[in-house]
């Protein structure tokens, strides 16, 4: 009877190759299986550590949020620091004011500020991002130079978060140092910039206006569009100069910033522009600024050769708060067919919204 010890490799070279390929595949499958088991075990260990850390620290962090004086704190092992900061950040994002300060105090007592500064400089990308968020919440002035360097990084996510951290730390200084860069970075998401500057508009407004005045003519239109999207107002004289610019792109961008009655004269003049894009933006602006005298102007534009201008004119008319339903009906009845159709369409869209 043959035993497994009597097994011999086949003499045929192709069969030998197939045999060893099978053995290698089996070995690799086993290795992958072991790797999966190791990863699962590591994940379970991390989850258990996270649960234990949450059970231990959440009551203390909640007490800090509630403004309670905390006595001696338990020791925070080095390996648990990142997990702790993740929990701490989650809570930081839920509260503000004194509660946020309470969380900062506990993090500093545990030496997390120092640890985050080290991670900001020498951690991997995820650790640097975590450190940026943590140091921003802590408003850590010591990490200003490292954060300022991070703002200039090519990585959009890291750099925009570093900008957020600087604004949190010192909004005026961040505006002074970063305004020219902000006007050039077209990769930063507008919604995120809007959130970052939400509570720092007064610090950023004059600095951005100054930075705009030093911007090259090529960079001016996108920079103006950015300022308009962030809903930051410009000084009247500066805006008027842009509205009078000979460059179409500058005028188009400046019309997006026309939110003050002081520039209504210029906006009305642009209704007669030969460029339909300028007429379009002027109509949109007039929808926000216009008075009773503008009804006739907008009505004329309901018959504009360009469809989009007619559409915007109808939207602007319907947005005028003083126009009664009777006046609107009269406007529809007395207009030409295309204008009446446009008014009916925009009214239907408004009702459906």
């Amino acid at each position, binding site marked *: 009877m043959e035993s497994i010890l009597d097994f011999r490799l086949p003499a045929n070279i192709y069969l030998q190759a197939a045999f060893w390929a099978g053995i290698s595949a089996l070995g690799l499958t086993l290795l992958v299986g072991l790797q999966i088991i190791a990863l699962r075990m590591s994940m379970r260990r991390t989850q258990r550590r996270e649960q234990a850390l949450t059970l231990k620290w959440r009551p203390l962090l909640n007490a800090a949020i509630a403004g309670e004086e905390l006595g001696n704190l338990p020791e925070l092992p080095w390996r648990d620091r990142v997990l702790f900061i993740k929990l701490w950040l989650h809570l930081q994002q*839920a509260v503000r*004011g004194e509660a946020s300060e309470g969380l900062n105090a506990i993090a500093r007592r545990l030496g997390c500020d120092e640890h985050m500064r080290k991670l900001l400089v020498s951690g991997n990308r995820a650790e640097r991002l975590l450190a940026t968020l943590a140091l921003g919440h802590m408003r850590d002035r010591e990490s200003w130079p490292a954060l300022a360097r991070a703002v200039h990084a090519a990585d959009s996510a890291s750099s925009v978060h570093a900008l957020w951290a600087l604004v949190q730390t010192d909004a005026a200084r961040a505006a002074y140092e970063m305004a020219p860069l902000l006007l050039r970075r077209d990769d930063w998401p507008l919604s995120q910039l809007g959130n970052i500057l939400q509570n720092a508009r007064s610090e950023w407004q004059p600095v951005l206006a100054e930075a705009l005045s030093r911007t090259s003519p090529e960079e001016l239109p996108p920079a103006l569009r950015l300022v308009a999207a962030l809903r930051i107002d410009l000084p009247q004289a500066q805006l008027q100069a842009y509205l009078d610019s000979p460059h179409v792109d500058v005028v188009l961008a400046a019309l997006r910033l026309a939110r003050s009655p002081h520039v209504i004269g210029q906006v009305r003049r642009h209704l007669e522009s030969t460029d339909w894009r300028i007429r379009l933006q002027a109509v949109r602006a007039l929808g926000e600024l216009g008075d009773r005298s503008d009804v006739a102007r907008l009505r004329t534009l309901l018959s504009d050769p360009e469809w989009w201008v007619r559409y915007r004119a109808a939207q602007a008319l319907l947005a005028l708060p003083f126009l009664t339903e009777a006046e609107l009906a009269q406007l529809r009845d007395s207009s030409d067919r295309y204008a009446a159709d446009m008014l009916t369409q925009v009214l239907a869209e408004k009702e459906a919204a």
Partner: protein
Amino acid sequence: MPETSILVIEDDEHIGQILTFILQRQGYQTTLAADGLAARKAIVSTDTPPSLVLLDVMLPYIDGFELVHIIREREAWKDVPIVMLTAKHTEKDIVRALDEGANDYVVKPFQPNELLARVRRHLKEQA
């Protein structure tokens, strides 16, 4: 005097714990519902409403606006003050919450002292 009870409806575990902690610290009795279904169950299963409902807008299964509607449809619950807690601080959401029947709103990230002041005010008005 019966204890003042507050139904907290919040799907984020950590935020739910913060709210429970700061409310209990003020002596309020709290019940936490962690999603829309649990909240609806807590609302429809009893005719004895809490003194106040603290309600997150973004919830799994049934959102906060729908829960306000469910609360206001129930006779026993129609006068319970509802304070909405929401990360969505757009005017549209706030208007919608108030239109649906909420009494007040607090925007996340919130200040615990401001939240407690609003809770106290609504409980006082109800008393």
